[in-house]
């Protein structure tokens, strides 16, 4: 990387902090705050199966192509429109890497596993995936321009209601 080591470290710490906040909002169903992590002027959120990606097919499992669509995804949960399994989800993010950081833009990647825990306290692995994102540094902190969640466990257990 051409940037001084201190910049690299700052970017890496920023990305780390960002993923921790992102996962914590979703884990605790603070959906409005999760929406606020997206750039209101231009953003995209996609959950993609590794199968489709490997075949060069662009069909998402879940695809929000505007800030409004990101809002709607979680509004349907918060307003009780959707019937879905209400397991408690816990996201574990690891191996955060900053691929490039130039100016205000950071491209980052991380691994994700999600556990699901039932009403009666039985936990199991729900999802294995990878975050690939482009973040933009602004006055309000880092915002998501593009977030792709590439899912290895694309044989989705029952359903995917809550975003990853």
């Amino acid at each position, binding site marked *: 990387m051409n940037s001084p080591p201190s910049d690299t470290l700052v970017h890496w710490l920023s990305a780390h902090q960002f993923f921790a906040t992102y996962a914590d909002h979703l884990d605790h169903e603070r959906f409005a705050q999760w929406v606020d992590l997206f750039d209101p002027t231009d953003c995209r959120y996609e959950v993609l199966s590794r199968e489709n990606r490997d075949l060069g097919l*662009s*069909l998402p499992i*879940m695809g929000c192509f505007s800030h409004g669509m990101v809002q709607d995804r979680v509004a349907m949960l918060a307003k009780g429109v959707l019937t879905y399994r209400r397991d408690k989800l816990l996201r574990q993010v690891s191996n955060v890497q900053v691929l490039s950081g130039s100016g205000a833009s950071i491209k980052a990647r991380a691994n994700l596993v999600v556990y699901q825990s039932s009403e009666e306290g039985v936990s199991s692995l729900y999802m294995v995936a990878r975050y690939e994102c482009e973040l933009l540094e602004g006055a309000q902190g880092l915002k998501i321009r593009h977030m792709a969640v590439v899912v290895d466990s694309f044989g989705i257990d029952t359903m995917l209601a809550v975003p990853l």
Partner: protein
Amino acid sequence: MNQDRKGRIEWTRSDFSRVPYAVFTDPEIYQQENEKIFRGPVWNYLCHESEVPQIGDFVSTWVGETRVVVTHARDGSFHAFENSCAHRGAQIVTAVRGNAQRFSCPYHLWTYNLSGELTGVPMAAGVKGKGGMPPCFEKKDHGLARMRVERYGGLIFGTFSDEAPPLQQFLGPHSLSQIDRLLVQRPPKVLGYLRQRIPGNWKLYNENVRDPYHGSLLHQFQVSFGLQQPTMKGGIKLDAERKNTWNHSILSAEDKDNQAIVAQAYEGTGKYNPNMRMADPALTQVPLDLGDGYKTTILSIFPSLVVAQVDNTYAIRHLRPKGPDLVELHLTYLGFESDTPEMTRDKMLTANFIGPAGYISLEDGEALRLVQQGIRHRHPGGSEVLEMGGIGPIEDTDYLSQEISIRGFWSFYQRIMGLPMGGPEASA
């Protein structure tokens, strides 16, 4: 009780308005289904022709619990065979799709051509004059277990049975005209695949797609945003054996004026909210590109295929049972060769209706999970009650809130499985 002391499972009503719960949980029934249905006199959906366009292209799929490979051979014909070596049984093809000139079992390199015939056995003549296969060994006797293959409208079907009727007869006239409407008048192309593993019996999904009654009740999203309403025009059409159903709904201008009737239908449920708004309603505003007025059309073909148009989405849904309590719902999501880039973008928007994360379909996964849980964990015996839309004759309807087509499915199921009719009515 629907299981007598010998554990027989029987139907207590001749119109199939009762279904013994045990058919969803009994492991013996599940084993019999593999033999009598998936390996029996039916046509099983395998894949779409556009997935294997070139010579050597192959796709791995499932017929019940049997793993099958579909190939496009050199002479242009399509073949399907079990993915299990004729020698020691190893799975030969591990890729889900690809292109190959031949298939070699990795264990002892027995090699098969694209039709599944055995073409090579290493060391068959022995090594340095010793060993080898006995003189009576003939390669032609040791090909892979092959299915009979037929096609209609780009859909490739296979059967393990010599008793299966001709494919078009099995499908029936409504299936043929709907396949023509959805998959022939515009050549389709695959936009992607979606897989949903639903922890419920595979027949629960067959019920679900033959059940327009739930469409506007479970799926609040559809009602809230004008995709489906209980006041819509529509109905069902059955084939001669009532195993295949086409159900359809048409949204007309007058549905906007039916809010009071809709509100009445939901009275006391606390579920109806006509004031719901979306921040970005773009996906609900995509025009129906077929232009024939149908809002939803679901073609359900026994035992494991659904060809569905939900709003402006087109998909082939394939059921892959994984034991009595689990089924993979495999979706092939389609666009059309003639689609403009804008139409393809629109289909990426509307993809949010269906599949494991679909505003509509994700709920079916949860509903079926709950049914399987409920059936699993109740006192043995008991049966479903299917009376909505009327009992008695199993006939076409011009209304949607009905469970008649579900009874049609069971009437064929009972016959093909050879399960006994019973109960006071049947013996009377």
